[in-house]
């Protein structure tokens, strides 16, 4: 079975029932019910209860459902984890991760809560949100801190604060950090997820930003508005030519395996392990796009 796609991860405020109910309609690959920045301090408890109720009662279809929890050093961290585990989200995205210890701490707490809830230990995955200079520097060790870790996301707003800079449309201030997160995540075999693009009305700017993210090696992008989802999928969708070639590579590879032949070539180009892996990824993404209900995805 192919690995789940995480091209689009839609943030939904954890205190907004209407948006939570509607989120799966837009068919993001992942939904992130947010208990952190979207929720004010005096609404944390209510939002947590609402998210638990939503996890238990709503049908999110084929979407991966995660919850962004408050950072390890906040007073909400433990309650977030303890309350959410019995409702069994697919994953928790931990905000403001700066060290491997943050992930280890969450991993251990999750293990205890899973046992108490009668769930298999390791059932709930972790996504690490890298949002500070310290987090970027420690990204390689963070990415290896737990077998639960499935993705590492980058958050530009807090990051630019931490390096005492400002976000620009060109984004040079983010280049090193974005690349560092991609390298660490890819080296660990987990998905790197790019930062949000806050100008929800700027489709052109958003599309350009997604193209850069794809080129840098990100597996997907965090989204703050449903309209961004189709645009992300559009950029990440392989072209028909790419899909055609990938299918021929896989067919040639399968035939070679069956016939026990050695080195093979397609269109005069040698096909080896990385080429086959890349071809499989292209076909997986294309198949996933076919299943999308968005008309642009057809």
């Amino acid at each position, binding site marked *: 079975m192919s690995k789940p796609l995480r091209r689009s991860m839609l943030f939904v405020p954890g205190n907004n029932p209407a948006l939570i109910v509607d989120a799966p309609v837009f068919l993001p690959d992942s939904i992130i019910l947010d208990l952190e920045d979207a929720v004010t301090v005096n609404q944390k408890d209510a939002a947590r209860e609402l998210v638990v109720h939503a996890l238990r009662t709503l049908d999110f279809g084929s979407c991966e459902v995660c919850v962004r929890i408050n950072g390890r050093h906040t007073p909400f961290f433990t309650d977030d984890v303890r309350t959410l585990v019995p409702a069994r989200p697919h994953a928790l995205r931990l905000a403001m991760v700066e060290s491997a210890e943050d992930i280890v701490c969450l991993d251990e707490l999750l293990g205890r809560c899973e046992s108490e809830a009668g769930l298999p230990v390791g059932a709930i995955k972790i996504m690490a949100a890298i949002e500070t200079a310290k987090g970027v520097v420690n990204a390689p060790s963070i990415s290896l801190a737990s077998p639960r870790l499935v993705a590492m996301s980058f958050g530009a707003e807090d990051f630019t604060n931490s390096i005492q800079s400002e976000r620009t449309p060109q984004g040079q201030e983010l280049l090193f950090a974005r690349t560092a997160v991609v390298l660490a995540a890819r080296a660990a075999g987990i998905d790197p997820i790019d930062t949000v693009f806050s100008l929800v009305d700027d489709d052109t700017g958003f599309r350009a930003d997604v193209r850069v993210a794809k080129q840098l090696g990100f597996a997907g992008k965090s989204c703050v508005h449903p*309209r961004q989802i189709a645009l992300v999928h559009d950029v990440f969708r392989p072209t028909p030519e790419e899909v055609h070639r990938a299918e021929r590579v896989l067919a040639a590879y399968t035939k070679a395996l069956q016939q026990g032949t050695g080195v093979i070539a397609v269109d005069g180009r040698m096909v080896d392990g990385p080429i086959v892996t890349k071809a499989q990824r292209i076909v997986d993404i294309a198949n996933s796009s076919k299943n999308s209900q968005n008309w642009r995805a057809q």
Partner: protein
Amino acid sequence: MMVVNKVGRIVPSFVENLGEFQPYAGLFATPPTGNHYAPPIRRYPGTGKKLLASLRDAILASGLKSGMTISFHHHFRNGDMLVNMVVEEIAALGLKDITLAPSSLQSIHQALIPHIRSGVISAITTSGLRGELADVLTRESLLKSPVVIRSHGGRARAIAAGELKIDVAFLGASAADVYGNMNGIHGPAACGSLGYAMVDAQYADCVIGVTDNIVPYPALPISISQTQVDFVVQVDKIGDPKGIMTGATRLTRDPLELHIAAQAMRVIEASGYFREGLSFQAGTGGASLAVAKFLKERMMDTGIRGGFCTGGSTGYICDMLQEGYFSAILDTQCFDLAAVESLRTNPRHVEMSASFYANIHGKACTAHITDIMMLGATEIDTAFNVNVLTGSDGIMMGASGGHSDTAAGTKLRLVTAPLIRGRFPIVVDNVHTVVTPGECIDVLVTERGIAVNSTQPALQERLNEAGIMTVSIEELQWRAEKLTGKPEPLAQSEDIVALVEYRDGTLIDVVRRVL
């Protein structure tokens, strides 16, 4: 006596003060009879000058008496001042028992409530009702007979057939000359097309043109002609521009509505009707208007160009005309000032009467030759019957409009609606009020799934071939009720407060008094 009609609704065969009615029997099942109505021949002064000093003078000159019927158009929408002004004057003259027969009524007409209570107005026929007036007329039996709800085409038919005989039509115009030529294109109260008023002008016994903008003869373009107008009156102000229309209708940015519109476009493309020369009627609601955006994108991608657009017009559709995506707009009403400007300047954008648009018994109507129609719904039931008149509380809050007219004749009839509105599912076992029968609805497009009417196997097959996932309408109902629960039945009395006529004059449903 009550009878069951073809959509299973129990309707009266006779209503006191209104006479006999036939039950709805099918889209084109009930043949017309009789002749077209004609107004009386009168002698007019040789000079042709018809300008009178005041509304009161015009009412007196018209010969209006207690028990007669007066009509208006609703092109001024919620900025309309004329209906309230005229009824005030009629009340001041001591007239009673008047039947009010506008093409539609808006929230601003709540000022009529005291005149209904006092008996000045004793009967109403309209396409729709809104606001407090609608609330009062659904909760109380104040009139001597139920309100008669007619579609735009149904009203045109009833007037032409003499079933709805109009004694005096008060037709507002944003520009008029003293001989009675009028339009809605120029002047401070510009409202665009006067399509609904054209039928009244043709058939009313007496036509009074009312304007706040007398212009030199001839008032061009001539939407309503001097040959149809008996008197002209100038008033200070005929409408509030703010309530008449906005500058340009903005396309929705609501992601849910855009999502529904995108799905609807997929259905259109798969249906086979997205082809060279296609004709199209956009709705005015968020999702249905947004379909135009996706239609334009696909026309841009494919090079396909449309024929005519019909119904009402918005700036967005007018831009598509200007840019060559469509070749003509046939317009009963303008929804924004951008559309008025287009009507003023683009010779391919023309007005049409409600009869031209949708009269089932006219010699031709545009609604019967249109390819694609976007429809709304306040409710739709598992037999695809649609309600656009009453809300989830049973109170009248909308209008029949051109819904049933266009659904009967258009080739592809799509209802777009959010599956859940407020706390209520849009798909129900039985709609509270049937306005449009399910037999002429092809497909329901919601954000949570698409359902094709089982009476349309060819369309279902085309969507299957295109890889568009569909579900049964019962599945959509289940999906909605999973989130909302099943609504409790409404508490209503046996009293009938409104009759819903199908476009051919048969009764398709009634509205009962809400308790």
